[in-house]
């Protein structure tokens, strides 16, 4: 009952390799089927995100023997030469594989520390594999544990609590002023990548009304249509500015686009309702004097970058707490695994002892001829009871062992000493 993991991620592989080795949902299903049909794995699960492709499995043979076969499989499946792939792949076995997965689910292994999406991706990968029948008792337990770790880290630490991009930091700041955005309007000036990122964040946070302005009306129309907003004519400030509670500006300009007197008029028109402005342009798009107006909150790129940096430090300070949760659950999983292993080892040992006993009686049959059939059966029963008695005390001690490391070592020792070992070399 060993676990093997073969994969690559943003730390070990450049994006060119990662994109070649990523799995679509259909490919993940097919790979799972092939891995099992080829007998490489008994249980399997493919986890593929934009930053990682990983295959988790329970091999029929020693996990160390299975790993090279899995590497070759990935190379063949994605038609990437093993020499290219080999340098990027990592292999983890048993404890390390469990630890790795739990860190992944916690967001500790993500490119953006503590990102929330990974837990959903792990959940989805598990759902697909489970529905396909590719998982069994080990991977079921493993991934249920991973999901629990992810949930606990999110609820008990602040690892994922703070925004880590300028766009999300800005939108979260707007929420500090307005609360939920579902009754508010946002005006986005510019139609570039940054504007798109902010719009995505605003939509994600439920902004009620989205207005887009851009020098190129065509691009404004396109962006507004794409995100369910309204495009306004560039320069129609008297109409646009009073409508918005949040204004985001990211346009290429030498001079500020929004001046103090324009915003003064807008504030008067909107009855001094609070206004939040994000100036994401370089050079700045909004006159700095606007920030002095009553009930106006102006944040530029530097201000927001400072917040992101503060948040990054705050997230990093949560790593030890998150690692503690991961370690706790790794311990729980290994304890469960050792208990299951113990049952199996004891069963094997019992069966082997019975075989030995039968062989012993067979080999000594001549010396036992004077015994009747009933006596021999009675003797066999007594020997079985004696063997069972021999096993009972160590089995009870092993079951009750609190020290996980010692428990695993003892189960391993039992297997090594008394059974033909099929495990690690």
């Amino acid at each position: 009952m060993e676990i093997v993991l073969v994969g690559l991620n943003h730390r070990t592989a450049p994006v060119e390799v990662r994109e070649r080795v990523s799995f679509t949902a259909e490919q993940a299903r097919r790979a799972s089927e092939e891995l099992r049909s080829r007998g490489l794995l008994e249980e399997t699960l493919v986890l593929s995100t934009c930053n990682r492709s990983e295959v988790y499995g329970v091999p029929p043979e020693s996990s160390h023997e299975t790993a090279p076969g899995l590497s070759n499989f990935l190379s063949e499946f994605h038609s990437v030469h093993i020499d290219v792939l080999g340098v990027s792949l990592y292999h983890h076995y048993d404890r390390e594989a469990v630890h790795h997965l739990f860190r992944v689910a916690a967001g500790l292994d993500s490119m953006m520390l503590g990102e929330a999406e990974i837990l959903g991706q792990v959940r989805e990968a598990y759902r697909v594999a489970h529905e396909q029948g590719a998982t069994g008792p080990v991977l079921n337990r493993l991934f249920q544990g991973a999901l629990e770790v992810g949930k606990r880290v999110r609820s008990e630490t602040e690892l994922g609590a703070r925004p880590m991009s300028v766009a999300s930091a800005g939108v979260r700041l707007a929420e500090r002023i307005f609360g939920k955005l579902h009754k508010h309007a946002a005006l986005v000036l510019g139609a570039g990548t940054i504007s798109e990122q902010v719009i995505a964040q605003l939509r994600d946070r439920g902004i009620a009304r989205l207005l887009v302005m851009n020098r190129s009306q065509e691009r404004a129309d396109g962006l507004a249509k794409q995100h369910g907003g309204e495009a306004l004519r560039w320069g129609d400030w008297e109409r646009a500015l009073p409508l918005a509670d949040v204004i985001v500006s990211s346009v290429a300009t030498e001079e500020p686009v929004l001046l103090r007197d324009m915003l003064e008029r807008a504030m008067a028109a909107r009855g001094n309702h609070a206004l939040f402005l994000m100036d994401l342009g370089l050079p700045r798009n909004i006159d700095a004097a606007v920030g002095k107006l009553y009930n106006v909150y102006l944040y530029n790129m530097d201000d927001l970058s400072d917040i992101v940096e503060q948040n990054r430090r705050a997230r990093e300070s949560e790593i030890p707490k998150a690692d503690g949760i991961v370690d706790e659950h790794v311990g729980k999983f290994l304890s469960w695994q050792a208990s299951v292993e113990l049952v199996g080892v004891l069963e094997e040992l019992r069966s082997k002892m019975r075989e030995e006993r039968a062989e012993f009686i067979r080999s000594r049959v001549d010396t036992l001829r004077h015994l009747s059939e009933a006596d021999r059966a009675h003797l066999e029963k007594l020997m079985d009871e004696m063997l069972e008695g021999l096993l009972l005390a160590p089995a009870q001690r092993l079951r009750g062992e609190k020290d996980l490391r010692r428990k695993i070592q003892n189960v391993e020792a039992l297997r090594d000493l008394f059974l033909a070992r099929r495990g690690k070399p």
Partner: protein
Amino acid sequence: MHYGFFILTVAAYGLSFALYLLFLNTGKALTGRLATLLLAGGMVAHYFALLARSRGLHTVPYHDLSGSMSLFGWLLALTYLALEFYHRQRSVGALVLPFVLVFFVAAHLAPADRLSPTEAHGTSFALHVTLSILAYSAFALSFVLSLIFLVEERLLHGHKLRDVVWRLPPLDLLEQMSQSSVLIGLVSFGIGTALGFLWVDRLSHKYSFYDPKYAVTLLLFVSYAVYFRLARTTGWRGARASKLCVLNFLIVFLSFTVVNFYFSPSHRFF
């Protein structure tokens, strides 16, 4: 006899305060719910403490300084709890509970009153006093909320984002909560004052009423009505309205202390 209730109340309020603080720090929903539960528990114990004291002294709880302060604390907790449920916001609990606790403990330590009972009595008088104290507690709550608003607004305006800014309620919500609180205060103040004038009418044949409390009450009513109007409909919304609310509370404080003690013959502790 009511010493047991005193201990119970202090313990429940104290624990509730600790949990509200923890909730403010961690944002864990369960901690917040437990804090609310303990606050409700504390209020029940506080109610029985008030009841036991009233029975012991054969008088209403607001007859002396101690009872009046204790009732103020209880009504402050009640108003806060109502706002917490209505606005679904627990983050300010940690900043309100200390006031509740201080008023309750101070009431316990306050010296016994030796003044003779007033001539006014009965349900309408009880309602007059209770509603007036409820109004004071609601105004006190709006004062706390306005202070939080001003601090948070200053931090946001000055780009000095500390951890606490991410924990406190949004500015918009703080304003709404403060306005709700003032509305509770205005309504109870209006009804309470009207009931008070019933007693002025009843006792006018015996006494001549030139009580400065009337002028202060009128000033308070107008000040809070002006705040309510400005905060909702004009360019004063935001920090200016919050500053006005803080200033208004200074009048409440003066009315509750200096005016009552030194200038008002018919109002002592309410």
